[in-house]
């Protein structure tokens, strides 16, 4: 998987590393800004109320 990724990146080592860095940042951004908040909202960690979570 990672071997294939490394081989299919164009250019020399420096160019490959630069592209990898950008990819890594993009993946982390998606995880932290989209995936994790979504997952957290659907896990019961957040429940601190009595009654249903949206009890009012």
């Amino acid at each position, binding site marked *: *998987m*990672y*071997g294939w990724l490394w081989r299919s990146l164009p250019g020399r080592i420096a160019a490959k590393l630069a592209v990898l860095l950008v990819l890594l940042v993009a993946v982390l951004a998606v995880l932290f800004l989209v995936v*994790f908040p979504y997952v957290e909202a659907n896990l019961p960690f*957040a429940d601190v*109320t*009595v009654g249903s979570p949206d*009890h*009012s």
Partner: protein
Amino acid sequence: MRPSTIRAGKSPRGQRLVSSRLGDGIRTLARGLGEVLLTVGVVLLLFAGYEVFGTGLINAHKQSELTAQLNASWTSGEDPITQAPEIGEGIALIRIPKLGKDYVKVIVEGTSRAALADGPGHYTASALPGDAGNFAVAGHNGGNGSPFEGLHRLEAGDPIIIETRDTYFVYRVLGDPRAGGASAPDSDGLVGKQVVQASEVGVVLPVPNRPGEMPHRRLLTLTTCKESFFTIERLIIHAELAGQPRPKADGVPPEQMG
């Protein structure tokens, strides 16, 4: 045997070893599986980090925003708590000196998940601070800044101070320190600190656990998870208004100094 024959993948007798196409396939598959498992592990660790630290950072930022908004409202003469606040809007400040001299959080309106991610949330159907009945507030114990992480340390008589635009309300955790403390029931059967099932909505009623009764006491109730990141039981703190509400013109209440 000579090293070169091993590198060539031959046995000493010159036969090919298992390095057939099948062997290559299995190796590729195993390596791929290993990489996937490692990746999943790293992502799970990142998520754990996000839960414990990331949500705290987001919450700290949101709390400072809410503080600025609430102060701006108060300065401009508005008082969101009395003006049908929207869900998620800051309505009051809560201070619990036992949890730290500088412990102050903005209470937001409502107990939706989105509201509680920003700060302790006021159960919309419950009373307002200082009113007869039950001013009930839920807050996180693990993650999202963990505003109510230390509630288990509260004991009978500990002050909880609610600040609105014009007034300080000093509540004290129920219980007589000389007679069982926060876990001994008072004359109405109320205790200062208890653990209940998440389904026990009675604790936030105007008269806790007595549906339909007219309130005469001025109570404050805090609810949170019993354990950090664990959800079956709730830790409940009941407190009662001590003395008269204190106009802000009279200055900061002495209890706030810890």
